[in-house]
């Protein structure tokens, strides 16, 4: 009888534990795959693994780490910097592995929060945004050179253009930092690191958090907020050239704007795709094209139009004439960006259709990469 009581107590406590941990989604994926393309290789991070995939046939080149570590979940897109692939993870660690074979070269563990946004690089310096409110500048050996503090978490990818680094932060601000600063502008911190204190060229308040990666084209920086507002900023002065919110009906924008010669494609979490005149921000289509599900990842420009994916798992193409076609439908939600490879598009279905798959513009699968357990 006493044994039964003990078992009952343990069962009750275990059920409670299960209930509470279930409520927190502990162990469940809290993001989506991130990937980038460099030449004929695609680099995709999802969960505890990063894979290098041969884009010509979908075969595995290497995976990192050799032994999975569940605490090291990486979701941001790995980026190739010279001969390195740089991966940021949810265990606050930035890792660089050899681009050829995936052998680890160095780790940087100086950040205090997660890496959600991808790194950018220029002239041998890696700029790594972190949710702890810093952008870390490291050399190719992984040594911290300096850091820059924003007023909130950083989830988007920085953009480097010439001698300026542009950064759109969740603190509502877009920063332009002059990378040719004097060493006197660096302030020594207690831990021996150096922080760039004040040398930003400009900062502009967009009023809401920015998660979408900004894009710079012809001296104009395009950024969008979670409120559902798209801005064109003068990259020199930071002044707002135009903004667009469709009378408050534009949903939260998570993906980077897709920019053609004269047209900008914007997709939002209402599932709407808008076309705007690049110069003026004026809406081109009288009403948006509705894809029927949240659009989170960035789209990609192809020869036939722009390809986006939706939370409902729909991969579709829409052109400037608002002619749309569904390329494929997947079982799982798709939040990752769509990337181009030659005349085809890469997608991360995260289902039986594979972690990464290449589709042609008629919707036929060219290959699908399914990681082995």
């Amino acid at each position, binding site marked *: *009888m*006493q044994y039964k*009581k*003990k078992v*009952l*107590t*343990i069962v*009750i*406590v275990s059920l*409670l*534990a299960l209930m*509470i*941990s279930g*409520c*927190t*989604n*502990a162990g469940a*994926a*809290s*993001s*989506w795959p991130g990937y980038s393309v460099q030449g004929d290789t695609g680099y995709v991070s999802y969960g505890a693994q990063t894979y290098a995939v041969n884009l010509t046939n979908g075969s595995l080149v290497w995976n990192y780490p050799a032994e999975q570590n569940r605490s090291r979940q990486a*979701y941001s897109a790995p980026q190739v910097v010279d001969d390195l692939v740089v991966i940021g993870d*949810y265990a606050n660690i930035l890792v660089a592995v050899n681009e050829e074979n995936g052998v680890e070269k160095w780790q940087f563990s100086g950040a*205090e*929060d*997660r890496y*959600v946004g991808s790194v950018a690089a220029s002239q041998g310096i890696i700029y790594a945004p972190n*949710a702890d409110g810093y952008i870390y500048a490291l050399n190719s050996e992984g040594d911290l050179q300096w850091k820059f503090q924003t007023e*909130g*978490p950083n*989830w988007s990818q920085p953009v480097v253009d010439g001698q300026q680094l542009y950064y759109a932060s*969740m603190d*509502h601000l877009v920063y332009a930092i002059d990378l040719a600063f004097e060493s006197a502008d660096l302030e020594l911190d207690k831990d021996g690191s150096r922080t760039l204190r004040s040398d930003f060229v400009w900062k502009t308040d967009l*009023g*809401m*958090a920015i*998660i979408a990666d900004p894009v710079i084209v012809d001296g104009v920086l395009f950024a969008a907020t*979670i*409120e559902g507002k798209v801005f064109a900023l003068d990259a020199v002065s930071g002044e707002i050239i135009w903004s667009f919110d469709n009378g408050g009906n534009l949903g*939260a924008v*998570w993906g980077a704007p897709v920019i053609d010669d004269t047209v900008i494609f914007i997709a939002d*979490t209402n599932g709407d795709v808008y076309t705007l005149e690049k110069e003026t921000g004026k809406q081109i289509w009288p009403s948006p094209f509705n894809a029927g599900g*949240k659009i*989170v990842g960035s789209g990609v420009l192809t020869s036939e139009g722009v390809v986006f994916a939706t939370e409902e798992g729909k991969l579709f193409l829409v052109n400037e004439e608002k002619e749309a076609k569904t390329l494929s439908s997947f079982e799982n939600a798709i*939040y990752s960006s769509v990337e181009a490879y030659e005349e085809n598009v890469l997608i991360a279905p995260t289902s039986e259709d594979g972690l990464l798959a290449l589709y042609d513009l008629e919707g036929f699968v060219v290959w699908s990469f399914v990681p082995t357990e």
Partner: protein
Amino acid sequence: MWESLIIEPFINALLFIYDLIGENFGLAIILFTVIIKLITWPLMSKQIKSSKALQEMQSDPDWIAIQTKYKNDKDKLAQEQMKFYQENGISPFASCLPTLIQFPVIIGLYQSIIQTMGNAPLQMLNLIPKISPWLTNVFSFIPGLKEPLSLLPLNSQSLWMNIGQPERVFIPGISFGIPLLAIIVAATSFIQTKLIASPTGDAQANQMSGMMNIYMPLLMGWFAYSLASGLALYFLASNLFSIIQYAILGRVNIKNLLPGKKMEVTKKGE
């Protein structure tokens, strides 16, 4: 239904409090927990009183006599028990109803805190559509209120901890972080269970209660150790509030905390 009736109003109320108190999410969690507990106070009081009545009934000589007399006749026992309930004005389910009503509120409170933290992309993506300016509009006469969406991302730094991360205190000379909040949560859980424990004459029930008194604080401590510190703050505020509530209702037994003391059995009329 669950989202629109419980989670979304809770998330917006939590954000409203966060805005009101100067964007301190830790304090907002504590305050929101206290407010929800105050709202559910009448239900909780009723539950405590009803369970007290049921416990007292267990040691009533007439009740014990019925149990003994009809222990081999289940139908008759049920009849006599019902009769006893009616004669003494006891409703055996009176303590269940308040619990049933409170349960979704407490679960909703817990879920809304997790969701409002929004410290991962998928959480943030799900959080944004749930935010509405209705509370800000209702209280628009309060100066300085912000558009709720503009409060995102929440300031995760509160007191000495990052609300979105498990809490650790680093002391110079010690190479590892001390989970201070987890220790406090486990301690307050232990104190709470000991203080409010009211054993009956049933030895088996007392034994089970004794085991829960050990397992529950350990479990709560483990959650506080491994989950985001915002949740640990919720556990702590909830524990402290329960202790105060039980104390106000006269259901706290300080002697249960004394080492070597066996828990006192609550008897009728105490």
